[in-house]
């Protein structure tokens, strides 16, 4: 059954990638020439069908893993991220069905692909639950929160489209820079995934001694440009290079800090390379490419879709990330709120989206300002899910 689940998961991944490619192809063709419209729309229809099939396959993969392991697959980062990817794609399918807006696919399907790819970076073995996680509140809390976040992802995509669409009419210089930065950060994510998955498939691993942490070792899964203190050139090699070139600075003394630094360097290198390539292909800033893709679309509708994603997701997110979280915290730790970093960041996201919902009823704040908040909201969600684990530790240590 675990094997079946892996095959299904691989199929899902392929489906999401194909669907994203179809959607991007559709939007590219559509901007060319009227005579391609029919073909483009057919590609879009296929994209929708493949995405729907992917969602079904994915649900089957999750179910198979559940049956195989006997526990709800919601207990480690791989399972959680996979579920988040599923809910992103599920809400994409639902909302793009409601609004008949295939162009959304070119922006949201890649988000789904990124989330799923990030899931695959984590170890996929089924691990039995430690006592702290043995509660039905774990799957309840985690799945509900993820569903809400999935809907927010659709809103994020639509908000970015809206910003790209309206920037031709009006845009402040900081908005231009911020949009371009958005694209750059997205390519960094892609860069990280390409590098991490590439070396994972290649099976690259090297253990380096780390004097900084009591003579332990750090297991590197990427070729170490930056080694821990105590490592020296020649400890590792890659493409004939004698690595590591440098050791991490001494003030970086957190657990695995040299490894995180090395990963960051790899991410920036790969991401910048991809960004540069895309710029060459686009013959200009990526925001221009994005604007061309959404040219002629109805900004009111994009705005509406962005709002709808949040309107649909907010109650679910409130239930999962705040209500269930508080009840479980009370049951497990004896306190419904302890200002644990993860809790705090869930609250920050919740306050942020509450702010968004109130902005919508204030005249003058409902257009671009609200769209920026909707777009940033998902960045906060991502930080809550990933950044808090990497940068701040807390009680939610299972995710690390």
């Amino acid at each position, binding site marked *: 059954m675990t094997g079946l689940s892996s095959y299904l998961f691989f199929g899902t991944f392929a489906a999401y990638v194909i669907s994203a490619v179809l959607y991007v192809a559709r939007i590219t063709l559509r901007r060319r020439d009227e005579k391609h419209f029919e073909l483009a729309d057919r590609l879009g229809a296929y994209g929708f069908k493949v995405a729907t099939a992917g969602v079904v396959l994915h649900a089957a993969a999750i179910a198979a893993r559940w049956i195989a392991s006997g526990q709800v697959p919601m207990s480690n980062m791989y399972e959680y991220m996979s579920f988040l990817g599923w809910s992103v794609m599920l809400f994409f399918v639902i909302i793009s069905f409601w609004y*008949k807006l295939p162009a959304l696919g070119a922006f949201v399907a890649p988000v789904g692909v990124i989330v799923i790819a990030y899931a695959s970076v984590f170890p996929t073995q089924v691990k039995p639950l430690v*006592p702290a996680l043995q509660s039905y509140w774990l799957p309840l809390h985690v799945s509900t929160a993820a569903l809400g976040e999935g809907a927010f992802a659709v809103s994020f995509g639509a908000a970015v489209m809206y910003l790209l669409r309206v920037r031709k009419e009006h845009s402040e210089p900081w908005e231009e820079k911020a949009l371009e930065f958005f694209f750059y950060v997205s390519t960094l994510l892609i860069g990280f995934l390409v590098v991490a998955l590439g070396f994972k498939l290649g099976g690259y691993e090297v253990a380096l001694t780390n004097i900084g942490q009591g003579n332990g070792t750090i297991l590197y899964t990427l070729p170490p440009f930056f080694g821990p203190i105590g490592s020296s050139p020649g400890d590792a090699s890659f493409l004939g290079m004698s690595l590591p070139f440098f050791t991490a600075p001494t003030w970086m003394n957190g657990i695995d800090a040299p490894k995180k630094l090395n990963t960051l360097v790899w991410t920036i290198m790969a991401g910048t390379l991809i960004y540069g390539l895309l710029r060459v292909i686009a013959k200009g800033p990526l925001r221009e490419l994005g604007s061309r893709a959404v040219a002629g679309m109805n900004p009111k509708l994009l705005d509406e879709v962005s709002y709808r994603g949040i309107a649909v997701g907010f109650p679910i997110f409130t239930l999962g990330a705040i209500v269930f979280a508080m009840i479980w915290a009370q049951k497990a*730790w*004896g306190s419904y709120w302890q200002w644990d970093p993860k809790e705090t960041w869930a609250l920050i996201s919740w306050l942020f989206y509450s702010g968004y919902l109130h902005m919508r009823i204030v005249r003058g704040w409902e257009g671009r300002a609200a769209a920026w908040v909707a777009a940033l909201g998902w960045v906060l969600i991502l930080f809550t899910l990933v950044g808090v684990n990497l940068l701040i530790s807390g009680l939610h240590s299972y995710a690390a």
Partner: protein
Amino acid sequence: MDEMGVAPVAAAEEEIQTAETRKPGKDILDRTWDFFASVPVATVLLFVIAAASVGGSLIEQESMLSTVQAPGDYYAARYGPVMGTVLFKTGMTHMYSSWWYLTLLFMLGISLIICSLERFVPLWKAVQRPNPAPDEGFVRHLKNHFSFRPHQADAPMVALAEALKARRYRVVEKDGRLYADKGRWGRWGPYITHIGLILVLVGAMMRAIPGAYFDQFIWVRDGEIVKVPNTDFFIQSEKFVAEFYDSGAPKLYKTEARILDGEGKELLRHDIVMNEPLTFRWVELYQSSFKQELGKAIVSLNERESGKEIGTFELDLLQPKPMYEVGGYKIRVVDYFPDFGLDSAGKPTSKSSQVNNPGVVAEITTPDGNSFTNWYFVMYPEMEFDPSIPVKFKTLDMGVVSTTGLTVKMDLGVPVIYLGLLIVTLGTFATFYIPHRRYWAMVEGPKVLVGGWTNRNQGSLVSEMQRLGHALDPKTNPLADQMEGEER
């Protein structure tokens, strides 16, 4: 706002003016009301609190510190003398209990209440007591319309009323006009949510009421009976159980517990497992820690010369008894060092209270009344200070004793918080999942004009109106393709 049913522009219904009109003659009370009733103010408060919370999660908080240093000194060392002092003095290092963070929360609470009051009354009138026959201009100015030619000219509204009733609308007819609506709960959603949030804040504030909250921690050794702090009952841990998976990861932590009253009568017997606390008289006991230490040793007393065993006894290493009797010999425990070592002056001492290397000073009295004093090291019985005495201890076995660590909590605010959370959940779902839709219809020449309004999901209102219009009069209202987002 159109809420009185007279203002013409329905779309502006939920829009709130950004600039509060500050008429002369408003005093501080009126202006306080205006300030807290303003949605922009509430929005800004939400974002400011979010931003402040970010700060609190990035700066190391005092409650997380584990240092003997005074916190002020710690931050001066951690963030530099100037920065550290500023952070510490402004309360950034205990953000969530700092006076200004609490002030922000307090202001948000006031805003929640006043915003709700300000809008609730007019909304109540508009939603619960709508005007079924408003100004004709009002109906014409609605954003969405359709019209149809009625089959029965003398009763033009009958078919429409039937169709709407079938769709579970509440229909009112007055002066030849028709008004219908459904989903009123959706309009109350935001207020329900706000009431829930206020309850959550009230529940959290209940911790300040004396006697409504405490947070304690106790260690209970296997078999021991300990008074539960702040209560009049006792807890006994019959046994603490720790189980592990093959990988070494923990599988189960369990305390087999009994609750006893002052006389030792059993009131409750219940296991305490993580995620399943024991609840007794509003007090909850949580499995939160444990330790396992060397707790007992089976010791034999032997004749030194022959090695013959005189007898055995169980020595409690956590709480040695003052006296043990073995085969007529009396062993008095004179002194005990659970973690034996020598101090700077070379005198025997214990390095801690952990049972790491237990050493006992024993006075042994033989059956015929002779007394000797000797050291006995449970882990190193061969090490003796006086090997000349005629008897000798031998360690036959050692055993581990578990101690469970329980958090003892009472928080009478929790039921209030749970109720608040339930209401918040109902409120948010009502807000976003129950759209309030309204129709006004009037006769206009040979046709009936129907105007529609909704507070959410314009798209689904439009398609409902298309379907309604088509069903009532297919000729006037052919089914159109649904709107596509992209213009060609």
